[in-house]
């Protein structure tokens, strides 16, 4: 495999580009199929915009890929601080939508700082972890760095919790947790963190079932109703439970081959809410069946696989951690989104990466792929390293 950066004209990874083009096609088809019911019957309104987002995303990906990610190392703290300022700004001058205060209104464009913050945080933690080197630390050595990471993580989480945005919060916890477990900190510390995490989760579950009054103090009511809907869709058939049930019925009725493009009764009739954004997977499921959904899941898996390969080959530890962070973010979003439409996970407002309609999410995801590409392009292969490339 010739992976000499100088020989490439375009600074891109063909596997990633191929996968993204596949995603773009699937996304456009799915959005076009259902967008007739939105935007005043103009079924081209959303697909057109999504196509534009993809173009912009490609350019952003290419630009970031062409930059040397190692230069970022010095700037991550600055980014982190910038992100925190934006999050604090949301706290004071943010705009609200459906009970959540998540956006900054810059007149021309609305920005959701938590979208950026998750990247800045992962970059910064990657830097912190990369400095530890490759060898396992002892338990005592791990304490300081763990506390440091927890501190950096806790600050934005607190602000995001106040917005509230449970989905993003869980996504960050998942990504940071993954980074820590993959890093060189002592196994004992990893075990301790896992124990703490499991205990915390267990306590919440216990409180939910046995001391609901305490539980509900920490969880907002709109989040609660989603949890209800998830646990017992039939009983809460008016709200989220209803949506979930309709989505499940739709996906199920797709069976092996699906009902065909534009033929999904559930997704076309408005029974499945937000069919072009959060519930886009239901469109794929109902109209293209098990074949369609498994192809999409396999494509996602191939993407993760490609990023893992890049990480395995990378000789910069910082690059490895960036890849791990991106994998964690994608995995969480994909699993959470698809999981919620098939009833494995509670409903949160997390979109399906690359497929759901939405500019800012697509842009951040493409930028993430840009970073990964940059890591790949700057991986130096040595003459005596054939065995490595054969892995």
């Amino acid at each position, binding site marked *: 495999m010739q992976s000499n950066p100088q020989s490439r004209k375009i600074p891109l990874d063909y596997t990633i580009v191929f996968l993204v083009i596949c995603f773009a096609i699937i996304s456009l088809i799915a959005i076009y199929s259902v967008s007739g019911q939105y935007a*005043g*019957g103009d079924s081209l309104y959303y697909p057109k915009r999504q196509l534009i987002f993809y173009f912009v995303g490609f350019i952003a990906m290419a630009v970031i890929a062409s930059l040397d990610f190692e230069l970022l190392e010095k700037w991550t703290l600055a980014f982190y601080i910038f992100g925190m300022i934006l999050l604090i700004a949301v706290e004071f001058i943010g705009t609200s939508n459906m009970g959540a205060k998540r956006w900054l209104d810059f007149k021309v464009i609305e920005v959701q700082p938590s979208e950026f913050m998750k990247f800045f945080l992962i970059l910064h933690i990657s830097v912190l972890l990369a400095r530890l080197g490759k*060898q396992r630390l002892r338990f005592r050595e791990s304490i300081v760095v763990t506390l440091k990471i927890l501190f950096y993580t806790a600050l934005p989480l607190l602000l995001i919790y106040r917005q509230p945005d449970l989905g993003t919060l869980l996504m960050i916890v998942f990504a940071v947790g993954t980074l820590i477990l993959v890093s060189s900190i002592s196994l004992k510390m990893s075990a301790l963190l896992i124990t703490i995490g499991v205990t915390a989760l267990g306590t919440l579950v216990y409180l939910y079932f046995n001391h609901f009054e305490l539980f509900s103090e920490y969880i907002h009511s709109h989040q609660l109703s989603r949890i209800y809907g998830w646990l017992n869709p039939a009983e809460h058939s008016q709200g989220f439970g209803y949506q979930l049930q309709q989505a*499940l019925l739709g996906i*199920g009725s797709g069976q092996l081959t699906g009902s065909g493009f534009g033929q999904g009764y*559930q997704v076309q009739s408005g029974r499945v809410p937000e069919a072009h954004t959060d519930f886009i997977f239901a469109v794929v499921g109902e109209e293209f069946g098990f074949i369609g*959904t498994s192809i999409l899941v396999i494509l996602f898996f191939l993407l993760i696989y490609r990023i893992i390969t890049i990480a395995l080959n990378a000789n910069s530890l910082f690059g490895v951690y960036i890849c*791990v962070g991106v994998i964690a973010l994608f995995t969480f979003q994909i699993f959470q989104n*698809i999981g919620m439409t098939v009833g494995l996970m509670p409903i949160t407002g997390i979109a399906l990466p690359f497929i759901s309609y939405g500019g800012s999410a697509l842009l951040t995801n493409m930028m993430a792929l840009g970073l990964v590409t940059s890591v790949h392009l700057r991986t130096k292969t040595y003459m005596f390293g054939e065995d490595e490339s054969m892995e």
Partner: protein
Amino acid sequence: MTHKKKKRGQIPLRLNVLFLFVFILFSFLILQLGVVQILNGEEARRRVNETENTTASIAVPRGLIYDQFGKLLLDNEPERSITYTPPKNGDSAEKRLEIAEKLAKLMMMDEDFESLKAMVRERDKKEYWYLFNVKEANDRLTDEEKELTTSEQYQAILNHIKPEDYNEFDWNDRDLLNVVAIKKELDQGFELSPHTIKNENVTEEEYALVSENLNQLPGIDAKIDWNRVKPYDQTFSSFIGNITTSNEGIPRENQDYYLTMGYSRNDRVGTSGLEQYYESVLSGQKEIIQYTTDNNGNILGTETVKQGKSGNDLVLTIDIEFQKEVDQIVREELEQYIKSSPYENRYMTDALVAMLDPQTGDVIALSGAHYDRENDQFVDQAYRVIYDSHVPGSVVKGATMLTGYETGVVSPGTFLVDRPIKIAATPRKQSWRTMGRINDKTAIIQSSNVYMFEIALGISGAQYRENEPLRGFNSEGFQIMRNYFHQFGLGSRTGIDLPYEATGFVGSNIQDGGLLLDFAIGQYDNYTTLQLAQYISTIANDGYRVSPRIVKEIRQANGNKDTLGPVIERFSPNMLNRISMDDQYIDRVQDSLRRVATEGTGRGHWANNRYNVAVKTGTAQNVFFENGIKRETHNLTLVGYAPYEEPEMAFAIVVPRTGRGTNQTGIHHNIGNRIVNRYFERKEEREEAGIDETAIEEMSEADE
């Protein structure tokens, strides 16, 4: 390879673990998808395609109304109508336009160009333009508007459409207007409910054309609807009442009531008269049909859930032919009086008659003629018998006398002196002539006012001295007298089976003793003609007050207008109360009333009547103000019953605002004589012809 791994630490291993973890997660997803789509897919598909059941109700014919001899008074006339029943979830706008265009070739919404033009409003024009310019109109939406809900967005789209847009079309084109007018009706349809597109003036040709092409017009149906028709036109019409049109539907103010009763919004309901009072009887039971549809709205099957039942028919107590004659008599007399003395009778507009069977309360006739002076027309306004109240005058003296007996102020045979009464600072009060020492009988027979004044004074405990104020007047006297009057129906509800009835006017000043004297001679409180009829009926019926009723029985519709169906309910007389006076008192008043006709104030008009009539006359001062100018007129009133021995009819006649000249006093007597005579003559004619009251039973089916 192994040493390299060591050199690079354990990162690859951890990455592989991470990869394994991701692999497991994704495998879970695929597995779950397999469960959802393959394992449970069949069930999910079945549930999505599951047929839905929707019910729709089909109107049934409303009940008919007959008179007591089975003559049809209210009929259902078939009417051709074109309806549209949208499928489940409705048709798309394009589809509706397509239907409208096809239908427009077969029928015109209105032949008249101007009314056709008036049907199409600006909004309709906008909606029409929008259908052809969806893209352009949608492009006008701002990004903000695109986030709106569907209906708000649609409104925003329409707001962006300007006259210059829709005026691209020629809105003077008959055919275009016709298409848009039809489409407008189609737009109003609600899934699975028939909506009337046109039901007035559907020509036979249109009906035939649409019927032939039904297979090309999904949802369209050509049906026979019905219309309420009164074969006797205006006669008794205001009591039969009216119903709403299907476009008016159920009255908005009582919407919730009707909806909970199972009505749909476009159902026709009674809004006045018997149509309203007997709504639940006449309306029948709607047929409920359950449609089974698939998700595309195709109807797979229909099943009648509840069998419809036509509304039941009403049989009235009246004889429509006699009612017609009474109407004519009243109108003729009114006309004659107004035309012969136009100046004297310049304020006279009405003549009202109520005739009841005193023993059963059966309404024999209710009649009211009204003179429309501006158009010089005599019109039927019979409802005034129940809604208008008038100063009754001396006709109430029977009630006053009985009240006097009951309170012990006078007893049979009490002599009192009839002489002018002068209370300080009020006008002199007296009888029409000073009668001197008279007893209670003479007081009625000669219609003495002063005797009644003495009764009122006695009840209120007041001491009268000439030209001095009344001393010791107890204002409770008003309530005492009114309570007794209520027992006769004077000032209380008669209980007639109509949705509304007036209860008259009650004077509010109870401090002025002079007014109680007025009350005693019928110069203070006002009563309706029907109340007066109930009052005299109560006396005629030996003190038993029964409520008047128009409906005699309810019969099941039998689909044949010439015969009556089986009886469902036959109403027995509804006795309201028995007045508290002793039989001997009532007998005495009855006797006096008879003698009014033979030797008293009614002698001149009634002495020669051969049907043994008992009457009481009244001439009330009716002073009213017109544009601030005082007008003095008389209300001529007459109550009576016949035959005296075994009364079968009682009547009250009120002719308000007559002239005061001495030659103007006969109208109520003329009307009275004529209706009494006609009543008995008709009875005799029937007896001669061998038709008796039970004739109706012969024409009804053998049901019991």
